[in-house]
């Protein structure tokens, strides 16, 4: 099933012994406990774990949205740790794409304008051929002049996917992209994401708590209590569910462990 061979050399994003600590003293919460992970280029990676396991924190730090307490983050060869806001903004313009649970489209802009927004903010032009490909892939050609309020949830999320894809970023980070969608729209979005990995070699990192969604990924990383506890390659929904059950049991056994997330 796997079409891309993953090697240590083709890494799109990398966390090296990352710690994330909130607060201090009594109120101290450790969200990430020395996490090291390499996310291979051209792969669809899902990060899973129970609430408070630190999965969102891990993704936010990888995307350069959140700082780390200790350790290093790399996107490609670029070291994010210690970058200024301006440099991080530049990085987000060129190397990172986002898909949010809430779609987060600008209601004042049409679908087309929303898709092109990251490029126009950066003052770049879209590659026309790639743009056409993206539009066709998400199947929004007849909806381009519509405003977000005139689109269904699934359509809005596909616009958001197109927005992330059109600038051909090194990595796309998707935060629960199907969390606000019904199962059919969710499946549409997920297969679309998987296709962009398979066909165009796009790297995607997705946070989800839905085993079904995770089954679309090439690799699933499981987090619990701020540590990577397990991973699966080419998973099926059932296999993911089994792993999760195991994790839930762990969490329950450590019921008063500090929560984070």
């Amino acid at each position, binding site marked *: 099933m796997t079409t891309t061979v993953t090697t240590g050399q083709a890494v799109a994003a990398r966390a090296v012994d990352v710690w994330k600590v909130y607060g201090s003293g009594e109120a101290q919460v450790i969200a990430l406990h020395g996490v090291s992970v390499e996310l291979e280029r051209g792969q669809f990676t899902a990060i899973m774990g129970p609430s408070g396991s630190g999965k969102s924190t891990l993704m936010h730090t990888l995307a350069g949205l959140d700082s780390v307490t200790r350790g290093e983050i790399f996107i490609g060869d670029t070291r994010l740790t210690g970058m200024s806001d301006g440099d991080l903004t530049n990085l987000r313009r060129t190397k990172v794409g986002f898909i949010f649970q809430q779609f987060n489209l600008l209601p004042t802009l049409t679908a087309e304008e929303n898709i092109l*927004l990251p490029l126009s903010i950066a003052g770049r032009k879209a590659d026309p051929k790639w743009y056409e490909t993206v539009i066709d892939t998400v199947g929004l050609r007849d909806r381009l002049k519509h405003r977000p309020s005139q689109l269904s949830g699934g359509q809005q999320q596909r616009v958001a996917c197109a927005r992330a894809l059109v600038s051909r970023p090194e990595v796309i980070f998707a935060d629960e992209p199907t969390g606000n969608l019904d199962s059919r729209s969710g499946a549409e979005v997920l297969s679309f994401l998987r296709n962009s990995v398979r066909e165009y070699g796009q790297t995607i990192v997705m946070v989800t708590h839905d085993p079904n969604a995770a089954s679309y990924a090439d690799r699933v990383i499981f987090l619990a209590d701020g540590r990577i506890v397990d991973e699966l390659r080419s998973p099926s929904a059932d296999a993911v569910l089994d792993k999760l059950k195991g994790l839930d049991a762990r969490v329950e056994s450590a019921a008063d462990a500090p929560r984070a997330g």
Partner: protein
Amino acid sequence: MLRATLKSLLARKLRLILSTLAVVLSVMFVSGSLVLTDTLGRTFDNVFSNIYSFTDVQVSAKSATADAASGNSQAILPMPAADVDRIKKIDGVKSATGSVFVTGARVIGKNGKVVISQSGQFGGSWTGEDELTKLIAGREPSAPDEIVINNGLAKQAKFNVGDSVDIIARAEARKTYKVAGIMQYTGNRDSMAGETTVLFTVPVAQQVMLGEKDVFNVVDVRGQPGVSDDQLRDNIKAALGPDYTVQTGEELSKASSEAIRGLLKYFNYFFLGFGTIALLVGVFLILNTFSIIVSQRTQELALLRAMGASRWQIIRSVLIEALLIGIVGSLFGFLVGMGLGALGASAFTSLASMESAGLGLPVAAIVTSFAIGILVTMISAVLPAIKAARVAPIAAMRDAAATDKPLTGITIAGGVVTAAGIGFLSWGLAGAGDATLLLVFGGVLLTLVGVALLAPMISRPLVAGLGAVFSWSVPGRLGRRNSSRNPRRTAITAGAVMVGIAIITMISTIFSSLSTAIGESVEKDLQADLIVYGQQTSDVPPVIQPGELEQIKALPQAQTVAAVTYDMVQLDGKQDFVFAYDDVAAGAAVLKLRTVAGRTDRLDSGEFMTDEKTAKDRKYTVGTTIKVTFAKGQTKTLTLVGITNSTTNGNGILISNTDAQAGFQFPQPIQAMVKVKDGVAVPDAKAAVEGVLKDNPEVSVQTKEELVGSSQQQFDVALVIVQVLLFIALGISVLGVINTLLLSVIERTRELGMLRAIGLRRRQTWSMVTIESVVITLFGTVLGLVVGAGLGAATVTALKSVIGFGAVTLPWGYMVAYIIGAVIVGAVAGLIPAVRAVRLNVLNAIAYE
């Protein structure tokens, strides 16, 4: 429920501060002006009760034109010294002292200029030290050229005992006197109210101040023990008959302070007018804030409704919030206003060298401030409260998507109100007698409200057009779209700016039209090249000394010289101004008058002339007679002998010089117009006239161009004062812009987070918010400019028949300045919201619900 209201109120501190600030600024004007006038009123009361504290009864001759209530004290009627002896013999009189004390003694300072005093330049007779006055240096005046001056004058002009001082007295030309003594009033006061006082020996005072021998203008009477002031007054009244004014000290002090209070009333109206404008703008801001609060709290309100809160409870919760803001805002507004009023009063009293009566706590100011502040806030909150009550419980379950309501209703309402406003305005301007002012005012108000209601509809195309300017950048495009996102909110925010700008533009348009009209009329109607006159600094006009006029006439550069004087008279029972030329033919020549009816080449005693327009207004024809009572007391019947064309400078009733010399308080020429001979350069002629006037410290000569310039300059100064006050109203509307943007930024937190996440720089975020702010401000300004220029032009056109000018001059310079100002103000108003937007933590912003 109350608890929930209070908590939600406190949770939004910034919003609370901004809407409270609007109330504070609006109330400030009202309380400030009330405190100011109250303090000044009491200060003047003190002054007058001091002045008259040692007078039981005062007697003066009754003047035909003097009218204490209108503040006209020009007309002073002398009474013979024999009257003093008559009064002494009246029952109950212990002593009677005749004295001279009138305005019009102009002291020339060491710099050669007249010592200015807004409170009066008094000249009088020295009648010895008494309870009220005492010498603090030197001695009494004994020789005709010796004087006593008050310590205020001595300090102001740095005069010492033994100094020589030049004085132009009311009835005499410039002459040199010697300071024999310096006096103070009881309580070590240098002056009563900042006035300058020169006291001559009695005969000199009679001659130079009243122009006659053995006359006084007042007699102070002290009663015998056991005789009440009222009894004494009645006795004297009965004995002297109706030709005399007899008043007790108390009555005099009351009458004088009432006259001042009458003037202060106008002062009050002026500030209250600005207060009203500020309130109007404040209403917009408060209304807007509450609407935003309600729409932001839609889910919270729906939840309350779902849990069983009734509509009335919801309305009440919004109104309670308004009440609290109203109370707090009124309190601070009152306090700030009181501070400003006190500051104004102390500035005034120190300028006028008066002793301030101290800051009072006028009940009227407290009541008005709180009533206005609370009422305005509550009224502004009624509509948002009703809107809040209409929130359906189901809204709690839905994502509170801001649905765009159709603008049809509001647009129709706006159209109707605007039409009504314009209707009232044209009715008022067409002339509706006593109701004119009310109609015009109401019309302007309605038009402004109507246009504000139309603003959401207008905002779509106009904002798009304005925003197109900024569309070259992505943040510009985003900012522009954001500003047209919620037309109602944008419109009401811009509406507040519009009201301020419209009123400023309207006033600027009227002023600049007036200013141009005056310039043009002087150009057109005045043949004179040079005008000789002085700035009037007291109730005595600066005059050209007769010798000087003859010298000017004799100058080789002068072709025609016409001198004019004027005075207040009773004309057929009403107060009116009449004027006279020393030479009617010369006057007609410089004013380009031509004969319309009768003869206009000369005027003899008992004759008068007028212009076409005045004749038409008063239905005069050649042969009409009028009865004129002059300031000096005599009454004459005058016959109309000629009618000239109307001009802008020389309209009214023109009488003969003979009658003027006999009846006017100040028959000397007040203004002279000089036509320069052909071939003589105007500057040369001006220099020659200046040479003649070098010893006259009061009057100066100006060329026609300088006259136009200086009269226009006065308009500019007045305009600047009005603008400064109106800018405070604009300040309130800027608060509105800040408020709206701040709330927009909060509302769009998640959107801002997303934009930052996909690569919008901090600087770009900044420009996006700033451009939204600038677009809203510009929209309000453009709307205000159009409405204001329209209202101004309508007023000017309507006034054509009243004041004789009708050409509308738009104040282009000011209008461009307002637009530039709007851009700057918009950028500044966007500052706080932009900082907030820029500082947003991207991660929190995305997760923001």
